């Protein structure tokens, strides 16, 4: 326990509160993107509909299920260490990392197909006609939002790997597992961000 805390519970509560404060500003960070989507969709409804029809719904839906499952596996690991089972926590961490990597790989395939189909805003944008401008704005939102989310995923995978490494060292026990819980908050939050982006990108403007 660090000297500035009155008890181990006080230290754990401060760590958890700090992560919630960080997540509160992350809500506003991604909230600005949602605001941009609502504003631009209202201004260019036909363009957004056209663009949404070209988004890869299959990959997006599979990725949503993958991410939901990864939150489930990490929380299962947290429950395991709270019962004093570090081995189960390590297994849960690697399952979570595996699912995170699957998500990123599928996202990469989706980006690759999008670029191949000419769905990159600019002079060579493949969707032509009167709604092309709105569709290009949609794809600006799409790339900014999904790249930012993927960066959060990469950071999350690094954090889960760190938890697995510390668990292997024997740092966590039934009595103390605060870092596992803090990283779990971050990982599930990244899941919540995707649950917000998924309908906006693939469904809401259909």
């Amino acid at each position, binding site marked *: 326990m660090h000297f500035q805390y009155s008890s181990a519970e006080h230290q754990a509560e401060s760590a958890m509160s700090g992560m919630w404060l960080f997540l*509160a500003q992350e*809500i*506003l960070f991604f909230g*600005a993107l949602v605001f941009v989507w609502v504003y631009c969709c209202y201004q260019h409804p036909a363009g957004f509909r056209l663009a949404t029809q070209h988004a890869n719904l299959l990959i997006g839906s599979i990725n949503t299920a993958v991410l*939901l499952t990864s939150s489930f596996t990490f*929380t299962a690991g947290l429950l395991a260490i709270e019962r004093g089972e570090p081995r189960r926590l390590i297994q849960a961490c690697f399952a979570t990392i595996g699912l995170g990597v699957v998500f990123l790989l599928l996202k990469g395939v989706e980006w690759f197909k999008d670029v191949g189909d000419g769905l990159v805003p600019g002079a060579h944008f493949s969707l032509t006609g009167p709604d092309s401008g709105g569709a290009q704005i949609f794809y600006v939102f799409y790339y900014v939002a999904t790249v930012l989310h993927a960066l959060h995923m990469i950071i999350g995978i690094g954090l889960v790997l760190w938890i697995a490494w510390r668990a292997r060292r024997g740092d966590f026990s039934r009595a103390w597992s605060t870092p596992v819980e803090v990283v779990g908050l971050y990982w599930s939050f990244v899941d919540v961000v995707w649950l917000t982006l998924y309908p906006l990108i693939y469904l809401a403007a*259909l």
Partner: protein
Amino acid sequence: MSGWPPLLVAWIGLLVLLALELGSALLLHLPATASLFGMAQAAIVVIAFMRIRRGSPLMHIFGAAGLFWLIVLLALGNLDPLTRTDLIVQTTGNPR
């Protein structure tokens, strides 16, 4: 929530909501409801996986503050563009 069964129920519930979200948008042609399903899923993740109910009052305050300012951002930010009436101004030529 604590223990395996509630966690499993939450995960299955999330996948069912995902199926309903897809079904409502593609089969019932109600794409606007997709965001409502997304919000319901987010609430389940916050309750079951982020275990907000086990948190201290300070964590609740930070979580609620994030949600409050998000509502302010979206509501006030969109108030003008969503309620503005576009008036068509007819050109009558330059009076001078």
